[in-house]
């Protein structure tokens, strides 16, 4: 059971594989926790992949396929916001790399140290801030993505994009999280499956123990469910689907990461084992947009208001 891409999507993914191969992306050096790849980011931008969702005959789902594939890499680039969120706005209005934040424009945001634009969900308005890199303070984080925050917005170019754009922004933000998580979960799971097949204890592979098999089977079900929910949401681009996908992702991350790390033992807790390249990033998503409970509330509101 898997997603069958159409001809367009096959062409996109084949080209992307070639690009990834040509970049010779290697697992970051031992001990590195910040895994932003400027080379990957630049190559994706110049090769046109990041503008796919703006092109005629291409859809949000096509963009989602690229985001999911890139998320499977042990390094990251600002792909999700550029491909899923930015196309909501006319070309040229929101420059990439793009960072998103809720509440205060001074709150920490993923990718802000590399961003040219910051979109701020103020609750009653959507604010666009043109980012001056000199005004960004790096924020200490154990969650792999580069985080930063603005020292202030004084002197920076800001513009209201209107309250009407808040709902679309949140819809695509949720969608982007779900799609990215699908890729992260897939690679994390593959890493652990390889480990439990090769690691022996009590004279047999770890993966032969039912206690291990059962939990990894559930982890696999989670990864599959996230993938399908994310692609379904990308296909419909409907608010409710996106909220449900994001709810499922944020509610699943904790158990998923626990199960995966558990079966890699102490080795899985070190920076010498590659699992953290994906699980750090998954954990970063736990609290975005207020966490899983907020997405669940949004999904419920959408469902019940539609039914009323």
């Amino acid at each position, binding site marked *: 059971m898997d997603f069958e891409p159409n001809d367009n999507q096959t062409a996109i993914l084949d080209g992307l594989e070639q690009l990834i191969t040509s970049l010779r992306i290697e697992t970051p050096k031992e001990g590195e926790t910040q895994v932003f790849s400027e080379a990957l980011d630049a190559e994706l931008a110049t090769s046109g992949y990041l503008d796919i969702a703006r092109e005629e005959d291409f859809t949000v789902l096509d963009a989602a396929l690229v985001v999911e594939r890139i998320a499977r890499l042990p390094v990251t680039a600002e792909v999700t916001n550029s491909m899923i969120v930015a196309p909501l706005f006319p070309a040229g209005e929101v420059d990439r790399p793009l960072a998103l934040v809720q509440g205060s424009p001074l709150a*920490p945001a993923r990718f802000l140290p590399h961003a040219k634009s910051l979109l701020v969900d103020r609750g009653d308005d959507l604010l666009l801030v043109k980012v001056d890199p000199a005004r960004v303070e790096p924020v200490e984080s*154990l969650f792999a993505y580069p*985080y930063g925050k603005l020292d202030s917005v004084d002197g920076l170019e800001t513009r209201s994009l209107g309250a009407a754009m808040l709902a679309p922004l949140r819809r695509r933000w949720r969608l982007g999280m779900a799609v990215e998580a699908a890729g992260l979960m897939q690679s994390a799971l593959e890493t652990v499956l390889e480990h439990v097949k090769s690691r022996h204890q*009590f004279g047999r592979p770890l993966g032969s123990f039912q206690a291990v098999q059962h939990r990894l089977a559930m982890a696999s079900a989670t990864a599959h469910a996230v993938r399908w929910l994310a692609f379904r949401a990308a296909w419909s681009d409907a608010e409710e689907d996106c909220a449900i996908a994001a709810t499922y992702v944020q509610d699943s991350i904790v158990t998923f990461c626990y199960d995966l790390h558990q079966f890699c*033992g102490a080795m899985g*807790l070190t920076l010498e084992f590659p699992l953290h390249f994906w699980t750090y990033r998954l954990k970063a998503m*736990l*609290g975005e947009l207020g966490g*899983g409970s907020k997405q669940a509330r949004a999904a419920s509101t959408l469902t019940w208001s539609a039914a009323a």
Partner: protein
Amino acid sequence: MSTIDIASLDAFRERARSWLKANIPAAEAPLDGPESRDFVLDWQKRQFEGGWAGLIWPAEYGGRALSVAEQIVWFEEYAAAHAPSTHSAAFVGLNHAGPTLIACGTEEQKAFHLPKILSGEAIWCQGFSEPGSGSDLASLRTTGRIEGDTLVIDGQKIWSSYADIADYQELLVRTDPQAARHAGITWVICPMNLPGITVRPIRTMAGPTKYCEVFYDGVRLPLADAVVGGINNGWKTAMATLGFERGTASLALQISLIQKVETLARDCADPMLAPRIADLRADAAALKAMSYSFALASEKGTPGPEGSLIRLYFAELAKRVSEAAIDLYGIGSPKLTGDHGWAFEYLDAFSETIAGGTAEIQRNIIGERVLGLPRTRQ
């Protein structure tokens, strides 16, 4: 069930609170390296000189010979005062190496080592796991070859927390390769400054380099000083060590976690998160009930396999609490960052279901040794 003199405990609590208020270090505890060693030894020395170290250890080895109830009160006040975490380089010596020596060591070993642990003169680490022997501890391959009155050690250990700054190691070696898996093992005290020992620190995903790999190349130990519990009887001694590690060693950490849940409850203003925090309070109350009754019941000896029930419950609750804290405070909060922030706690909590026997091993112990179910075929 023994009776507890509440008035006397209240007076003890007041003294503990007052001493902690006056003596807690102003600086935050470093997480690893020589600074961590200096900090931990200095803080331990200060507690010892104040009469607050080894509360339930025998008086003849520097302890106070007090009751477990008083120990619990001390830990409650210790956590409430935000004293340095007990999950430090002092943990092994105070919580399972020392208790193992009390239970299984010779008089000479007790007299030499126990006062050093209590007075902040020595740090201990553990040398049980090997690269090929994690959950399957009895498959360990590090050898201890007996040459006259000397033990010659060759091999490798891993996940030896703070081995890079430790003075002694509780070390398991195979002294009889011909014997059955569990029968040819010996528990020895290994000074970490001996020729032939190499330590490589490993950085964890939570940040510090506290885990270590230890290599032994012809390390020579005087047999009489080293062996605890008898040659080739190390599995039994190791079970005592693990009984402490899984049973009572984490009591202070459990009490600290219970108090952290109360802090989350006080800080929670989000109605969506409130039911989750309420569930955690109930879980913490259950942990408190279990861990206190188990500690009180273990007052007179080595904790039994029921400790695995508490170890498992605590480990999984610790994860849930740190996850809830991240949701409650948000990634940008100062409460998350720093060496002792919730982000560190969250990542560090992953080790709770692995160290001292994974959650799966704890479940096996509960199934086989507590519930009396048939053993798993291996």
